């Protein structure tokens, strides 16, 4: 009873793994057939990696200690009928409509193909012929060669990484970040160039921020503070350049002013 439960559980796990494998195989085939002109090697590698990962998990499930030896189980068809079986259709997604004499031998076979059987026999006789010692030696040398290769590859990777990646890394410039944030927060470096907040005496040529300021020198005009009573026609709506703050005004204002409009109730 416990064994039955184990069997069922392991069967379920196996089923889900196989289903996953089937899905990824299907999507890979689809990709190859339909997008072959746009396919890139990394994408193919991805699919292969996915498949190999799934095969791995499948293997692990099979080797799991709770999995009973499937070898000891035998599948015997109980009923063969040439009629369509709806249940079977559903479970196999329409691929096996009939559980009949033709289908069963194919699906339930356990004996490998004759060629495969031949090759297996060949391999086993070869292996037996070499003898245990020689076999061990061969195994060891194979392992050594593999580890050498791995070392070489990882060394290469490490060396190239440290060298190659640095120049590409700069995707942002912190100084720019600060400049942009200052511009948005209080207008540093923007059209008015007025030093922010309480204005100390500032030189007429001083931009005030380390930003890219090109060609703006032609726009500077120093506006004297003592011109608060200029009334000039206000441009419609948007185009308003603020000329001078009423009251405190060192000569540090550089704006290209088209209209300086003072509010009658100046503070």
């Amino acid at each position, binding site marked *: 009873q416990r064994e039955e439960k184990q069997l069922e559980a392991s069967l379920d796990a196996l089923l889900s793994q196989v289903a996953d494998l089937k899905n990824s195989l299907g999507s890979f085939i689809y990709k190859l057939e339909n997008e072959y002109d746009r396919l890139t090697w990394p994408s193919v590698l991805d699919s292969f990696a996915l498949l190999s990962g799934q095969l791995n998990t499948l293997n692990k499930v099979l080797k799991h200690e709770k999995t009973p030896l499937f070898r000891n189980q035998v599948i015997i068809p109980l009923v063969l009928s040439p009629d369509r079986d709806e249940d079977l259709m559903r479970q196999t997604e329409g691929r096996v409509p009939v559980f009949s004499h033709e289908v069963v031998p194919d699906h339930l076979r356990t004996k490998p193909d004759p060629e495969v059987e031949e090759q297996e026999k060949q391999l086993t006789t070869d292996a037996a012929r070499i003898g245990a010692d020689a076999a061990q030696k061969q195994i060891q040398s194979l392992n050594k060669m593999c580890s050498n290769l791995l070392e070489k590859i990882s060394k290469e990777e490490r060396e190239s990484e440290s060298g190659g990646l640095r120049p590409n890394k700069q*995707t942002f410039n912190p100084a720019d970040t600060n400049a942009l*944030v200052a511009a948005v927060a209080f207008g540093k*470096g923007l059209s008015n160039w007025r030093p922010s907040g309480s204005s100390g005496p500032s030189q007429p040529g001083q931009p005030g921020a380390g930003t890219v300021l090109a060609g703006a020198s032609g*726009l500077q005009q120093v506006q004297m503070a003592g011109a608060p009573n200029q009334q000039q026609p206000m441009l419609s709506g948007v*185009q308003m*350049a*603020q000329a001078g703050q009423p009251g405190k005004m060192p000569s540090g204002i550089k704006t290209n002013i088209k209209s300086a*409009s003072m*509010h009658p109730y100046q503070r």
Partner: protein
Amino acid sequence: MEAPPVTMMPVTGGTINMMEYLLQGSVLDHSLESLIHRLRGLCDNMEPETFVDHEMVFLLKGQQASPFVLRARRSLDRAGAPWHLRYLGQPEMGDKNRHALVRNCVDIATSENLTDFLMEMGFRMDHEFVARGHLFRKGIMKIVVYKIFRILVPGNTDNTEALSLSYLVELSVVAPAGQDMVSDDMRNFAEQLKPLVHLEKIDPKRLM
């Protein structure tokens, strides 16, 4: 225009205190494409929205030292879109472990005579700029990538020049006060944009 139409912004009538949580960073021009692609993958699936906005910042100088700041924005590429008026308070300094800059925020859409109105009220325009860029949304988070252009001739929004070789990237959320888990979500999202952009809490007062 801050592209979310007014219906998406929370209505601030009444006593709901809305706070804006903000993270900022920048990206160099040549990396903009990769950033846009990454954002398109990360953010809600919608048509990539570009915008061109003209923002003017108005100051009202009172007897106190610090002037009152209002920001007026209008869209240069969307005809008929309403103007936007925004107040942003001082960043809250209760630091704790808050990962984003938090400040009080009041937002409203207005009609087109906004500047006249503000001038009549006594505001003076402090500075203006044109912002041109892309807008993305993820849930309540808004990600804006834009380039700031300085206006050379005041009032002439065609004659502009870029302020720097970078685009400013802002991640912002407008939420009722007290929802600090919002900043955690923002920080997680910001992690996904590294190493392209480093979004962080930048205190504007430090840059004065």
